[in-house]
């Protein structure tokens, strides 16, 4: 059974600082997703990572995937208040079932 561990659960950081969210998973998978959720809103797709060594960047967010270590990271550079949200990683089990991490609730303080 595929398990996904995400940490930290909560993250409070000052604007301008850097931090990393970690996502570990227990068995091999073809895809890993990062989502952002604002309160009451849909899960917004941030990144889809498909292969070992994949790195994707969008603005102040950068995601990477190490399939050998079964680890993905979401790195935040020079955080701004607008990045405050809950971030989820999800790993695909089979071809359609997403197994999610517990989420990281990020609060960026001005």
């Amino acid at each position: 059974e595929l398990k996904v561990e995400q940490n930290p659960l909560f993250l409070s950081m000052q604007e301008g600082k850097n931090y990393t969210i970690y996502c570990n998973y227990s068995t091999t998978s073809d895809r890993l997703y990062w989502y952002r959720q604002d309160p009451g809103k849909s899960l917004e797709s941030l990144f889809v990572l498909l292969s070992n060594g994949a790195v994707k960047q969008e603005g102040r967010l950068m995601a990477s995937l190490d399939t050998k270590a079964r680890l993905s990271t979401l790195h935040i550079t020079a955080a701004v208040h607008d990045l405050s949200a809950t971030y989820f990683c999800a790993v695909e089990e089979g071809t359609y079932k997403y197994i999610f991490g517990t989420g990281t609730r990020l609060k960026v303080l001005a």
Partner: protein
Amino acid sequence: EAGVTQFPSHSVIEKGQTVTLRCDPISGHDNLYWYRRVMGKEIKFLLHFVKESKQDESGMPNNRFLAERTGGTYSTLKVQPAELEDSGVYFCASSRDRVDEQYFGPGTRLTVT
């Protein structure tokens, strides 16, 4: 293109009552999924439809939950009778093919008192 929509956004019911949640997928998406997040824990898979057929309902917690997808369009998830532990956020997602990325709705927050 309209996204996945869910109704209601929030429902508060008493233990023992019945609630029906609705999901409208993106037009043209044959695949529809239900997930839920309970008590701030991880989001868990409930079931998967392809058109009107249930392909995988391995995540459905018990027989108090009934999902349907009439005509392969919108889907409903009925909880009858609701229990306190059913409280959480129920998400719906859809995809064109099963191998495509899933697009999620905003969720329905269910509170059972």
